[in-house]
């Protein structure tokens, strides 16, 4: 079976030759411009932001990053592809990839 990876998760061809996409969450902080997806979870615990996990999560929510919101990466900076400009529903938010790692998307 051939497995193709794309930014949304894993795609493979099932036995009846249908393309099936298995959605796996990945951090928004790793996605590329053009990526479009839905927020699965906010997982701030393991990240090395200067903020405490609790505070990072609160700030992300205050900027509209809640489960189910549609996000799209619009732009990225030149150096280190950082920061990124993300469309969250109908607002645009700039943040660094480091903090965006806490946003899991499919």
């Amino acid at each position, binding site marked *: 079976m051939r497995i193709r990876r794309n930014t949304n998760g894993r795609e493979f061809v099932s036995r009846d030759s249908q393309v099936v996409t298995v959605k796996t969450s990945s951090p928004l902080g790793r996605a590329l411009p053009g990526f479009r997806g839905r927020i699965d979870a906010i997982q701030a615990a393991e990240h090395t932001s200067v903020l405490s996990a609790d505070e990072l999560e609160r700030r992300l929510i205050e900027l509209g990053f*809640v489960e189910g919101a549609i996000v799209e990466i619009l732009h990225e900076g*030149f*150096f280190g592809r950082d920061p990124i400009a993300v469309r969250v529903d109908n607002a645009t938010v*700039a943040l660094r990839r480091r*903090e965006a790692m806490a946003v899991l998307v499919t």
Partner: protein
Amino acid sequence: MIATTGAGACHFALVGTPNSGKTALFNALTGNRQKVANYPGVTVERKSGALVTPSGRKVTIVDLPGTYSLRARSPDEEITRDVVLGRLAAEAQPDLLLCVADSTNLRLAIRLVLELKHVGRPLMLVLNMIDIANKRGVEIDVEKMSAALGVPVVTAVAIRRGGTDALLRQIDELVANRPENVPHSWHSPTVGELRAAQREADAILRATVRNPAKADNLTTRLDAVLLHPVAGLVILFVLLFVMFQAVFSWAQPLMNLISSGFDALGALAHDTLPGGILQSFIQNGVISGVGSVIVFLPQILTLFLFILLLEDLGYMARAAFLMDRIMGGAGLHGRAFIPLLSSFACAIPGIMATRVIDNKRDRLTTILVAPLMTCSARIPVYTLIISAFVPATKVWGLFSLQGLVMFGLYAGGIFSALGVSFVAKYVFWRDQPSPPFMLELPDYKLPRVKSVALGLYTRAKAFLQRAGTTIFSMMVLIWFLASFPQAPANATEPPINYSVAAWIGHAMQPVLAPVGFNWQISVALVPGMAAREVAVAALGTVYSIEGGKQAASAIGHVLAGKWSLATALALLVWYIFAPQCASTLAVIRRETGSWKWMAITFAYMLTLAYIAAFATFHIAVAMGAG
């Protein structure tokens, strides 16, 4: 009736997320009946105004700093929280909270409304910019939204005449109908509460808004270029280049006009007043002294015009986005870009603008380096010395040497600022990881002439006030010191050599001689502490040039004959670093709330100035420019 404050007047507060058009609404409601002051103890601007409702009720309104939540994270947001909760002793708790929202971007605002309901004060949601929302096909069921939220909702177009009529009627109705004051139950929301509130807000929006706004087409298209990793940076730098070019060239005709105006005034004073001490005081002390400062008003206003336009356009947040990584390399936060850019006009508004930086260390670093940005008050000093000492030749037949020296002085300021912040970040605060950069990028909007004009007017007023008070009194003082005691009748030397100024200059000279300064420079540096540009006028007075300021070229001519090139270069370099501005130091003291940071700024800048001037002088002497 709602409980009222004062003589039957109601007291309202405007709350809202950043970029909700809150200030535009405030301007529309209060017009020119505004007062800008500071909250006691902090330098957060307190903007208040008055209006009269259609039924004749007097209302005072205070415009609070924008915030996403009452969980204050910066000094600005703390003010919003404390005023809303009535915790600020000097400020009555508002009788009514007007929560302002951008109708095209309601998610975060609705969550804020849900949080504000816990405050227990009467609350009204104002759907601002409803015209833009309607144009983009958004349909909002205002009544249903009002029912779902449990608060009155009204639409408004702050920037259109009559756009706030419905709001005013609603205010009247609300004040007459006496909503209950519920006891306040606000506490800092937990993660779970925030999430639940955002979900509730999203549910309310799904039920009450049809065709929620898609991405703004124009903004998307503009951002494709302006936020492009390469083109975006190039455009930003071109924009900055144009801005500085404009400051120097566009302002010139107006400056010449002001300058010749003051000269004519001085000549008039000379001709009408009887010769003697009064004539000298009016002409040299007052007219030429104040004139030498007011002449920079066009440059300062040009710079502020650019900053205000870019801010209103929504570009400043983009500039912070583009610069975040570059500034991060020097240990600065992306948000520090705006304060540092303002510091090219004047460090005082720049330092005050650091309030948008929520991390304390980042804010301190920015405050520490802001005075190194070449502010407009250095321009007269630079211009004077450069035109006197640097030949007006072309380099490679293209750039003027004088322009290049000027550019070098600007670059010197910028690079030393980056160096200082680098040292602060990686030597003193090494253990502090870099705090997050999170910022909403608002849709682009055409700047309103009225709001830009209002902004410029405020700056011009502040500048003229400073020229009329601080600078004026310093000029009077320097004239006094340079004129008394008067020379004896049989004097052989110029009269100033007998004055107090000469005495002060000679006393300071041993300290400044190693960097190549003579006593005249030493004495000019003293009033130069009040404002850098005063040093120019002071040098003029000290060198007893009649008419004080018969065009800067006259002073320059005298200087060229009296100073060595090494001295001139040392003074230029001194001015890159020297903490020659009492107002900046005072603002640092106020903003940081401590004498310590003011002392640190003063000490490090003075040390850098001395070392750099010392090195410049001795290198120049060694190369034969002594």
